[in-house]
């Protein structure tokens, strides 16, 4: 039955409807309109199994129930890294119309958070709140307007740009790539092959740098390699949960549900939460250590000091499985509870209690995330969390681990497959044996893979002259091509005003910028010369590695957007397909980009073929996946690595035998002289001795508040997907700033007032939320909101709202992750 059959006489005048559609907030409407709306509600028409929208005269679509679903498609959530198993409901027309949890999946037992529940609404244009799917490759014409081109044209143009860049005096490193934590593993593997094996650039990074680089480097320099040692089952097997800088109640809600259930169990583990804010997680803790921003390392050193002072250590484990204990113990000895209390603002008795619970519990599980990674002392804090577990021997057994939780759905896959800064299969770019092994496996000339660590995405030489980055190369005109894929740096990089200047079309040194993404508009497209439309979650098959090293498969449920345009050379393609098209075109245009036999490096046609090649690439490595298959992944609801043919399910926990990957032939990173490499070849972990340093920017008389940034449950990253979903957007449609009750009172600010915020780098204006979630002297704003897209400009009435106009481009010296979590800010009620 067509919805057009239900046209009725409109209740509102055309002018009122227009006003309502552009400003749908009832309280902003006139009284007469308000009353009409009330009348509309009381007289709503019920027709044909749906409710008639009296404003538009159209019948509402029934998309919140399963009546239209004819098939459920096995998949995994594409948002956060927890890896919830789910199924995508498909209707008669082949459209995704529903999502439901996979009740048999051990990770989430069918439960999903609000993002997963509405995930199907990111796929189809008719479900999108704003924008539309990109289906045409495009380049800018001479007037800066977009012009449609075919895929053949697009790959030819981009290939020529890359060839020209490689031939330029700046060489292959002038081709910069910047991708994501949201591709499939096969896509990372393929792109790593293209970038390192064909193009030979070392200017490769991904947004995982912003997300968990500290965890990678902390693990690598302690255990010799990346890879969280624990698994989710540790939650139900522990006696003490130590949540450091993480808020799973909002960021990983199904992880939080398992913590909450464990807390209701007979074992009832204690919960310690380290967070400057009183989040839902912190409010539920037995002990909330509400520390000052930027003081993580002092706090963890203080806890380790107490563990050693009270002999809650395992001397035998330390002796047999670690190195450098004496120096570490001597360093933390000065971090007494009183000293640490003075730095962190956490009372000494709480520090002592925390250490006691951690030290005396039979099993202790530490979980940590952005509050660690995006703060001062990031890598060193991870190192000390690992050290804390090592000296207690609480690692590699049920209920005990230093467990880094990741952010994005496949960030772990990028770490494993080497789609950006890493080398495939946890190989070490400084180990010639590892590099030549990979070159031979890929059948490329020896010496093609750059034997050095790839460049990180961002830094600022005014603050840290010793660090180079994509952004510094942009600034210095050292990039010829900047290929951005499945990420949105125009919202998420720090100190954005500078980045915008470097990318400005008036900048004669700007490179050729390519944005490969799923929607139009997306903020980064503002700066693009070329747009490549990509398929997304649900539209392609591939595997996802979640935080606990579990590899799961997401099956394609629907055709990619614009599938019907393919015969004409258009339509969105999977990132795997795009990489293959580029590899084929480059090899065809220039034999330097081909393998030893003159063929394209990407020989696989399907994701499954790519996975089979990847499995062979990992055989014998730390992240061995050779025991997996697509069928086995689905049958088992995921399998953890390492998984070998002989021991398919052997990857539950790492380091149960106390042997780490610190021998030179094993380690994933560093030259032979690095401290974590065991000179005796005994595979011992390395204990770092590291001191707290004050953050590079502290509140002062001019900028008197700490600015903390973070996230809300409804949105994911730069809202590229979540702002399209009405049910998420409407809950949190705009950015805001949390101000403590006392500070708000002193400044005469009420909830809803407009507040002007400024740092040394920029300013924004957002509404106030007065709350005691933050302490006096601290304010909090979210990192989600861009201010370049038309819908956001309209929503914010042209105000700048992006928190990254304020944040500081200062990166951790070890892992090069920016300290988004804290800087100094001033604020005032706006007129």
């Amino acid at each position: 039955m067509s919805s057009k059959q239900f046209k009725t006489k409109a209740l509102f005048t055309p002018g009122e409807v227009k006003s309502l559609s552009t400003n749908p907030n009832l309280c902003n409407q006139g009284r007469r309109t308000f009353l009409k709306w009330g009348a509309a509600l009381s007289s709503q028409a019920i027709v044909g199994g749906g409710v008639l929208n009296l404003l538009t005269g159209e019948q509402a679509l029934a998309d919140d129930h399963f009546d239209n679903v004819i098939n459920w498609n096995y998949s995994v959530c594409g948002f956060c890294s927890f890896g919830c198993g789910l199924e995508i409901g498909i209707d008669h027309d082949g459209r995704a119309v529903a999502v439901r949890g996979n009740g048999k999946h051990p990770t989430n037992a069918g439960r999903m958070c609000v993002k997963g529940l509405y995930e199907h609404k990111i796929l189809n244009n008719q479900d999108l709140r704003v924008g539309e799917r990109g289906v045409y490759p495009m380049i800018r014409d001479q007037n800066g307007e977009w012009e449609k081109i075919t895929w053949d044209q697009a790959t030819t143009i981009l290939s020529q740009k890359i060839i020209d860049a490689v031939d330029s005096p700046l060489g292959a490193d002038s081709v910069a790539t910047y991708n994501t934590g949201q591709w499939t593993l096969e896509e990372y593997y393929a792109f790593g092959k293209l970038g390192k094996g064909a193009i030979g650039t070392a200017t490769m990074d991904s947004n995982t740098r912003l997300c968990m680089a500290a965890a990678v480097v902390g693990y690598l320099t302690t255990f010799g390699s990346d890879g969280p040692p624990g698994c989710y089952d540790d939650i139900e097997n522990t006696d003490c949960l130590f949540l450091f800088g993480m808020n799973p109640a909002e960021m990983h809600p199904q992880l939080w549900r398992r913590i909450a259930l464990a807390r209701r169990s007979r074992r009832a583990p204690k919960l310690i939460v380290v967070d400057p804010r009183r989040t839902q997680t912190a409010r539920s803790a037995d002990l909330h250590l509400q520390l000052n921003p930027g003081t993580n390392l002092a706090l963890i050193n203080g806890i380790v000091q107490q563990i050693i002072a009270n002999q809650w250590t395992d001397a035998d484990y330390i002796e047999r499985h670690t190195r450098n204990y004496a120096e570490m113990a001597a360093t933390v000895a000065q971090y007494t509870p009183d000293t640490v209390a003075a730095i962190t603002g956490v009372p000494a008795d709480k520090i002592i209690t925390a250490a006691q619970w951690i030290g005396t519990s039979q099993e202790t599980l530490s979980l940590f995330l952005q509050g660690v990674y995006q703060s001062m002392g990031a890598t060193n804090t991870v190192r000390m969390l690992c050290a804390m577990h090592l000296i207690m021997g609480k690692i590699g057994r049920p209920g005990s681990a230093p467990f880094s939780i990741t952010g994005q759905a496949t960030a772990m896959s990028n770490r494993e497959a080497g789609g950006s800064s890493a080398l495939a299969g946890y190989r070490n770019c400084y180990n010639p044996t590892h590099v030549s092994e990979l070159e031979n496996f890929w059948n490329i000339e020896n010496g093609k893979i750059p034997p050095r660590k790839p460049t990180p995405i961002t830094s600022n030489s005014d603050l840290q002259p010793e660090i180079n980055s994509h952004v510094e190369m942009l600034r210095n005109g050292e990039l010829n091509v900047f290929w951005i894929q499945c990420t949105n740096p125009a919202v998420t990089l720090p100190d954005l005003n500078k980045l915008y200047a470097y990318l400005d079309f008036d900048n004669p040194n700007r490179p050729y910028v390519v944005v490969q993404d799923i929607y139009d508009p997306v903020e980064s497209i503002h700066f693009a010369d070329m747009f490549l439309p990509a398929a997304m979650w649900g539209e392609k098959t591939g595997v996802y590695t979640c935080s606990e090293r579990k590899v799961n498969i997401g099956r394609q449920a629907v055709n990619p957007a614009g599938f019907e345009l393919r015969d004409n050379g258009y339509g969105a393609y999977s990132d795997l397909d795009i990489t293959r098209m580029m590899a084929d075109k480059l090899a065809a245009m220039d034999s330097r980009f081909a393998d030893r036999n003159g063929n394209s490096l990407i020989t696989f046609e399907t994701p499954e073929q790519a996975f089979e090649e990847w499995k062979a690439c990992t055989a014998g490595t730390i992240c061995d996946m050779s025991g997996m298959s697509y069928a086995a992944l689905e049958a088992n609801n995921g399998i953890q690595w390492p998984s070998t043919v002989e021991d398919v399910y052997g990857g539950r926990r790492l380091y149960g035998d106390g042997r780490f990957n610190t021998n030179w032939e094993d380690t994933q990173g560093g030259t032979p002289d690095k401290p974590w490499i065991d000179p005796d070849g005994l595979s011992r972990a390395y204990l770092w001795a590291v001191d707290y340093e004050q953050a590079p920017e502290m509140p002062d008389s001019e900028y008197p508040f700490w600015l903390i940034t973070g996230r809300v449950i409804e949105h994911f990253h730069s809202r590229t997907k979540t702002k399209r979903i009405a049910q998420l957007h409407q809950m949190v449609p705009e950015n805001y700033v949390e101000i403590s009750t006392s500070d708000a009172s002193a400044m005469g600010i009420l909830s809803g007032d407009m507040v002007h915020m400024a740092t040394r780098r920029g300013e924004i204006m957002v509404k106030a939320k007065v709350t005691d979630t933050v302490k006096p002297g601290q304010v909090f704003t979210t990192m989600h909101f861009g201010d370049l897209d038309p819908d956001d400009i309209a929503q914010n009435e042209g105000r700048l709202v992006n928190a990254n106009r304020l944040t500081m481009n200062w990166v951790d010296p070890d892992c090069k992750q920016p300290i988004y979590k804290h800087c100094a800010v001033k604020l005032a009620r706006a007129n």
Partner: protein
Amino acid sequence: MKLTRILSKASAISLFVLAALATHAPAIAGKNHGGSGSDGSATALDPRFDTSFAIEYDHSCLSGGCHETDSQLVEEHAESFMTHTMVKCNACHGTHTADTLGEEKPNLTGYYPGIGPTGYLVGDDRCIACHTATFDDPKHPNKTWDCVGCHTPHRFATEQLGRN
């Protein structure tokens, strides 16, 4: 089936929303946790199961001048284990309240209270979306697909939050 329920509940829902929209009450500060049981008796307060954040950050649903006037709704929501695990209003209802900051700002996107944002009742499928295993569980006593027949709406759990 669903149409029947829409028809039977629509008028009551309409009256409810008018009453709710017409009332401007001050924002609640947020509850710590469950205050009373379904029988009105006091429950043991267990700080491990805080729901105050979820309610405060339900933005204008329960703390912005609309549904906080429905004390039963707020009490039940505050007692819910699902609230503690951050299942907020929009997980089932979508949302019709567009404001982050506690102001009363319902929009007109086609949402009707008690009905999903597309104009449909919050039916059992919203529950089943997460509780698929329950419906496959032979031990689950009821197969009538009428979740709220046994589980109090907005409290959901038959076992109250904090009671072990």
